[in-house]
């Protein structure tokens, strides 16, 4: 069993609050991803779990046992550092053998375990090399091998793929997921790449400025972002945000300067009224949920501002009133710059946020 629970964790560095009352659980055999921008407190969260950092307040539980005072070597976790931290004077073999030697493995046991993990990670031909003789991708695999050569209760991974090039990163993403399933291991994984989080995580936790924004399965976080930050951070092309207000009389959402009006989805109107703020709202819609109208009818009217062809699709910037929104279209859609077009909005997939609290208003 590996069940980690962070309870009301607060950590300050001087006057900087790195973590503010974090509550987080990692279940047995789960791939848990903490996602957030640089400086959000992701690494600090991981280091608190590892025992490398002592939280100022709060409890760290492992399998219902409080481990705040347990030292890192006694926690039986493995940590993959962002900079890999391979021992520079040890060969690949010695690096991977190092955690086994702490556990008094015999030579035969060591050889067998190292053979198995180096084959799994396809680095068995590199065993006699020194870290500085390896490429970035190879170093990263050695760091993973050093963590995975034993069966720790928990794997802690601090942006292990960040230093790799794009191709290698997508390849390693798939491998990590496969290995995690194969070993039936529990992963606590930190990244600033939302794509990595969505593709790897069984659940993801979004962190910003030391505060937990939202926790949930990737699809749920993507579909129902809890606030403006999560909505804007997750998604390969950022969600479009437009200032708006709600008119209870006509039961419509009104764009800035009244340039557009939309009927919200079932129940959203009541939710907005119940929330008490009908004036300062943000209308959020993902680029893929806007389509170009083939007729003269449409929810929004706008002017093509710029086109970004991305091969498999084209992203157009459309000016709607004072707002600039992005839409995704098929690669064969050709729109001249400056062309007036009508857009259809998939209103069931639109989000309304309270601009003051930044929280989503759920229908």
């Amino acid at each position, binding site marked *: 069993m590996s069940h980690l629970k962070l309870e009301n964790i607060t950590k300050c560095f001087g006057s900087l609050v790195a973590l503010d009352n974090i509550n987080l659980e990692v279940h047995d055999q789960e791939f848990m991803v903490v996602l957030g921008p640089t400086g959000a407190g992701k690494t600090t969260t991981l280091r608190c779990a590892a025992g*490398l950092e002592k939280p100022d307040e709060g409890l760290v539980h492992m399998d219902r046992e409080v481990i705040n005072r347990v030292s890192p070597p006694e926690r*039986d976790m493995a940590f993959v*550092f962002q900079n890999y931290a391979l*021992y*520079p004077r040890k060969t690949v073999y010695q690096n991977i053998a190092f*955690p086994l030697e*702490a556990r008094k493995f015999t030579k035969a046991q060591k050889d067998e375990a190292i053979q198995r993990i180096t084959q799994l990670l396809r680095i068995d031909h590199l065993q006699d090399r020194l*870290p500085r003789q390896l490429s970035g991708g190879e170093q990263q695999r050695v760091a993973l091998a050093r963590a995975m050569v034993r069966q720790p209760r928990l794997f802690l991974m601090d942006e292990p793929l960040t230093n790799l090039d794009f191709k290698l990163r997508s390849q390693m993403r798939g491998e990590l997921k496969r290995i995690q399933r194969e070993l039936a291991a529990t992963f606590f994984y930190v990244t600033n790449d939302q794509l990595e989080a969505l593709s790897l995580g069984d659940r993801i936790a979004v962190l910003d400025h030391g505060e937990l924004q939202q926790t949930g399965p990737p699809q749920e976080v993507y579909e129902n972002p809890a606030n403006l930050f999560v909505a804007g951070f997750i998604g390969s092309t950022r969600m479009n945000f437009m200032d708006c207000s709600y008119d209870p009389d006509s039961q419509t959402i009104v764009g800035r300067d009244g340039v557009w009006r939309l009927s919200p989805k079932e129940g959203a109107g009541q939710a907005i009224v119940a929330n008490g703020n009908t004036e300062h709202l943000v209308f959020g819609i993902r680029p893929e949920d806007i389509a170009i109208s083939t007729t003269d009818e449409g929810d929004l009217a706008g002017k093509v501002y710029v086109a970004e062809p991305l091969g498999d699709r084209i992203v157009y910037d459309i000016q709607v009133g004072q707002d600039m929104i992005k839409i995704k279209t098929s690669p064969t859609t050709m729109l001249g710059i400056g062309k007036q077009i009508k857009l259809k909005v998939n209103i069931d997939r639109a989000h309304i946020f309270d601009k003051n609290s930044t929280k989503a208003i759920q229908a």
Partner: protein
Amino acid sequence: MTTNTQITRTSNLPKIIHYAKEFLFWFVLIATFLFSIFPLYWMFITSLKPRTDVEMTPPTFMPFVDYQPTLDNYVDVFLKDRAGAGFAEADQEATRKISEFPTTLTNSVIITTVTTILAVLMGTLAAYAFSRFQIKGEADMRFFILSTRMLPPVVVLIPVFLMFNQPGELVNNALQNIPISFIQAFGESIKDFSLRNSYIGITLLYITFGLPFVVWMMKGFFDEIPKEYEEAAMMDGYSRLEAIWKIVLPEAFPAMLATSVFVVITAWNEFVFVLLLNRDNATTVPPFLFSILGYGQVEWGRTAATSVLFLIPIIVFTFLARNHLLRGVTFGAVRR
């Protein structure tokens, strides 16, 4: 086209500037080299000169050419001064006793070795703590440590002398006020304890001199070693102490060696304190060198020979350490 004209246009001026720069570079280099090596050369050839050639005017510079080198001076180093005038030459040779040189050289080696090992060891550990842990008032402490190096040594000479003279007596005076018999007896037993003329005293003093330097050097160095190394080792199942021993110290070893070269040289060359504190016992070579200079006519040949012998251990140590000094540090495995 412009690039073509630039390539084909040849002027002698850049070439001349180039050669002038080259010449200046080598001239300064060679001049500096000669300037620093000449005293050593002079000392070395003087040590090989027969007594009659040492003070010859004009001076001679080339052994074998200007004079026939001799090892007489080196023999003299190990023997005491002649008993005095009036004896026959043969009698003088027979009555001469072994000089203090072997004893003082042994003392120098012992004191310097112990000083270096302890100062580098303690300083390294302190520097590690400064580098890795959040310590209250760390900046003040580091400044205080450095400030001990700011005073000229002569300023602290008197207080050190007083402290070293009879610390046992001071402690005893205090203990006699306590009306408990065994404490008074203990005070009585250490009454004569003095740090003067002792190995411990002078070694403690040299460690005190060396520590600030070691702490500052090693602190800067540990800051360069990513803390992830020992954190990785701790996650791999080792205690912090094991992580330091197995991972950090091997990384820090070249720096420790470089630092110890400076500590060795400082302790080896120290003259004023040992002259004042250890006049009778546990004396090192520098005061001995001074003593043979001191009386009557200066025997330059013998002095030079002593200096050469005194230099050899330092040269050997620096020579052995040089590979580590030059190799520096390699951070292969960490992207920064």
